[in-house]
Each structure stands twice: as C-alpha cells, then as structure tokens.
C-alpha cells in the first residue's frame, strides 16, 4: 500500500494455515505463506510461531525449528523477516540462521520496558544490524519495573528513552526504529487506549528530533470483538486516522484490502466522531467517556450497510 509499509502477518499461529504448518513442522506450508504474501506485495514477513488458545507451543520447540525454518523461508523469498517474540532466546536463534546475503535487514520485534534481558536484546540489534520495534505502550518505572502507559506523554517519553538507548548503545538511525504505540481492540476500549495511541503518534510526529522514525500498529487487533461484516471497514477507517498522525507501518493481513477508505467514506467520519466521544469531558471519569465510546462502536456495528 502506498505510504504504508506492510508487515504480512500470515506466518502466525493465530492463522489456521500457519498452525497446520507448525503442527506438522511442514516447511512447505511456511514457504507457501511466504510466497503468497510476497506476491501480494508485503514489505516484511512476520514470523510468529508462538502458542495460541488453540495450540500449546513450548519455547524449546520454537528454538528447535528455527534453524530449518528461517533458511527455508529465505529460500523462497528475499522479503525480509520480522521476528516476532518477546523472548530473547528466540531472537538469538532466529538471527543466527538469517542469511543477510539473501535478504535485507530483518526486524527484531520487539523491545519493551517489561522485557527480561533488555540490554542483551539491544546488543543483538547492534550485532545483527536489525531494524527494531519498540513498544511505546509500556513505560519504565524508576525502580526498574514497568507499567502500562496511561497517557500520550508516557508513550512519547518511552519512545525518547528507547531512541536514546538504541542510538547510543546499538548505533541505530531513527529510520531503523519502528514505534508500536499499541492498538487496543476498539470494541473493549473503555480506557481510551485507542485515542492514547493516536495521541502518542501525534506527539512523536510533532517532535523534529524524531523525524524519520517509523510508527506502526497491529491493525488486525483494532476490530477484534466486532461483527465480521464491519471489521475490514473499521480497520481501513483506522488507517485513515493513523495516516493523519504519521502512521507508516502496519502489521496486517496482506490478503485483505489494506487501503485507507476514501476520506469522504461515512465510516471515516463515524469512527472519528466515535473516538471523540471517548474523550473525557469535565467532571466525568474515564469510565464514563470510555462507555460512551463503546456505545458509539455498538451503534456503528448495528447500522449495517457495510459495502466498501
């Protein structure tokens, strides 16, 4: 898609095709998913072989399969891989078997305030010269612990903190850093988190010292918990709003239409208005505002007429 770099998400055990390939340890299954997404124009291919509610995956099983899996994917496509796991040992093994002579730099997804062995993950980024995802949805606490970001300033401060670490310790340029502001399912967003993510992007976009940094979301999360008929339109309308505040990456299913909607499409206006309903008004609680937003989403879901 024009203006947005797509990280194809089909090699993820949440998808039945990926799950079948994983369960059979069938390299051809993964290769097929890599080819499909390459043909559809994905710019990166996520590799997430973690467990889901339908599948238990032991960490050791991932480590054992990566040495075969990574080269097999690279045999079929030169599109770089985005390695998606919170666990450092996964990345150590994955990067060890990634052939840089076949594909451009991979992505390490992701660094977050809550990660174990964060310093070592940053060293990996430097050692393997990767692009890197940082989670702006979790903040550092002074005692070394972490907590969820509850306002846009927290997300912005976390971004600055990570940028400082990645520039000084891993020699990254801003264009090698991708910020994930965290995209909460709008169906359950009584906490104003969707607005928080957009507001965080807005603050990052406005900072000239962060020019060139990338902004990303996991797009498929957005419409979780809504009827199937409305999901794609909600995702596309979110893209419209995201693009306005600098979104330029998305983790998404390239088999879907991943274009933003025509700016005049009614869904864009409806989503914008609904998210505005989620802003706290004087004298009310976040819960009041959050439920007003959920009522707005419910209205969108129940209106039907979802062509487009």
């Amino acid at each position: 898609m024009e203006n947005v770099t797509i990280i194809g998400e089909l090699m993820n055990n949440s998808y039945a095709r990926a799950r079948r390939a994983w369960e059979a340890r069938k390299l051809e299954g993964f290769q097929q998913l890599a080819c499909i997404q390459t043909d559809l124009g994905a710019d990166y291919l996520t590799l997430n072989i973690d467990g889901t509610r339908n599948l238990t995956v032991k960490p050791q099983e991932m480590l054992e399969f990566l040495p075969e899996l990574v080269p097999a994917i690279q045999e079929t496509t030169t599109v770089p891989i985005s390695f998606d796991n919170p666990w450092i040992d996964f990345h150590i093994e994955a990067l060890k078997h990634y052939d840089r002579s076949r594909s451009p730099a991979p992505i390490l997804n992701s660094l977050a305030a809550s990660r174990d062995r964060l310093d070592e993950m940053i060293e990996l980024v430097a050692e393997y010269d990767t692009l890197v995802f940082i989670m702006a949805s979790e903040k550092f606490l002074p005692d070394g612990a972490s907590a969820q970001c509850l306002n846009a300033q927290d997300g912005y401060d976390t971004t600055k903190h990570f940028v400082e670490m990645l520039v000084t310790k891993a020699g990254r340029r801003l264009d090698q850093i991708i910020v994930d502001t965290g995209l909460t399912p709008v169906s359950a967003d009584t906490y104003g988190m969707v607005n928080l993510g957009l507001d965080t992007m807005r603050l990052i976009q406005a900072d000239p010292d962060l020019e060139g940094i990338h902004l990303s979301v996991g797009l498929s999360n957005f419409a979780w918990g809504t009827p199937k008929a409305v999901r794609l339109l909600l995702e596309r309308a979110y893209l419209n709003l995201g693009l306005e505040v600098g979104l330029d990456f998305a983790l998404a299913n390239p088999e879907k239409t991943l274009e933003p909607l025509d700016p005049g499409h009614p869904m864009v206006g409806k989503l914008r208005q609904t998210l505005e309903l989620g802003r706290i008004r004087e004298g009310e609680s976040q819960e009041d505002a959050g439920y007003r937003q959920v009522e707005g989403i419910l209205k969108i879901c129940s209106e039907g007429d979802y062509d487009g």
Partner: protein
Amino acid sequence: MNLLQSLEEAIKKGNRDDAVKNTKEALSINMPPKDILDALVRGMDDIGRRFKINEIFVPEMLIAARAMKESIAVLEPILVEAGIKPEYTAIIGTVQGDLHDIGKNLVGMMWKGANFNVIDLGSNISPEKFAEAVLTHKPDVVGLSALLTTTMPMMKNTVDVIREKTGNAVKIIIGGAPVTQDYADEIGADGYAADAASAVDLVRSLLVSLPG
C-alpha cells in the same frame, strides 16, 4: 411483561436507565431482593450465551455488564441487609511480567454480572501477591490471565505458590491468548476458559458440586 421481565430485558439490551429504574421500582413495591437479583443474573446469562454463539459481540457485553453493575449498586445495600451474599468470591489478575488486561477485565465484568464478588488485583501480579490475596479474601476461585508465551510459565509458578501457601481448597482457572486446556492440565490448574462468558460457566461447573 411484568416488572422483573422488564428488568431482565433492560439488562439484555444494556439499557442502564431502565435497569436502574426497574430495580428501584421493584424495591419500592417490596419485591424480594433475591428475585430482583435473579432477574439481573438471568439477563447476564443470556448475554453470555449469545456472546458464545456470536449472536452479540464485545460492545453489547460491556454495555449489558454496565447496566448490571448500576442495578447492583442500587440493590446491594438491600441484599446486604437481607443477608444475601454474592454467589462466589473470585480473585482475578494478570500474572507477573504481563501488563495486558483486556481479557482479564472482560472476565471480571462477566463474573460481576453473574453476581460474583470480584477482587481485581490488576496486572503484573506476583505469585506471592496472589497467595496473600487468597489468604486475605478466602475466595472460591482465582483467575490467572496471561497474553504472552513468555509470561505463561509464571502461571505455573503462581499455581505452585498459591498451593504451597494456601493449600488446595481454592480453585484456580487460567485463560489468555496463548493458553490452552492442555496447558491448564500440565500446570495443575483446575480449569481453562476460552472467553469471558465461558469463564462464568467454568466457575459454576467447578463449584456447584462442592459442599457449601
């Protein structure tokens, strides 16, 4: 439609104004508080049933749970006065190292809607804190949530610590995106729920046969 049926309908529709109005009206004509409570729970049970078969979705569930909550706020003092206690006491939290809370919050809401007394410990909760809360609140059930594979092992630690410090009396159930029934069996949890509505049924099925 009688008053209690109207109340049940108000919950199903998530109409909090009608739910509160009907609750107040039922109290004003001295309807037994247990009957009023049962109407609310029937409404939420229907929401859970329809959610599981994809007839309704998360927003409807949240709106209904809010209507239930507001009615309960009106009804609670009367229930206390009448000595009617919540059906069960439940503790819920996301395990240590994991900051995700959407799934945990949805389960907490559905449990409240089923008339459970819910103590939400929040996210990133250590095994020791879970165990302390069990000792303090003496719940019937503990719900552990995790979204990451890296934090799933903390579910086992938490189960172990709760068992070690508080014994086997409390039921422990688990849920979250990467969690499965196999994993629940493996770590010695008493059950696994795939979604918020199932978490209500699971607690009832685990506890209903126990001697009171």
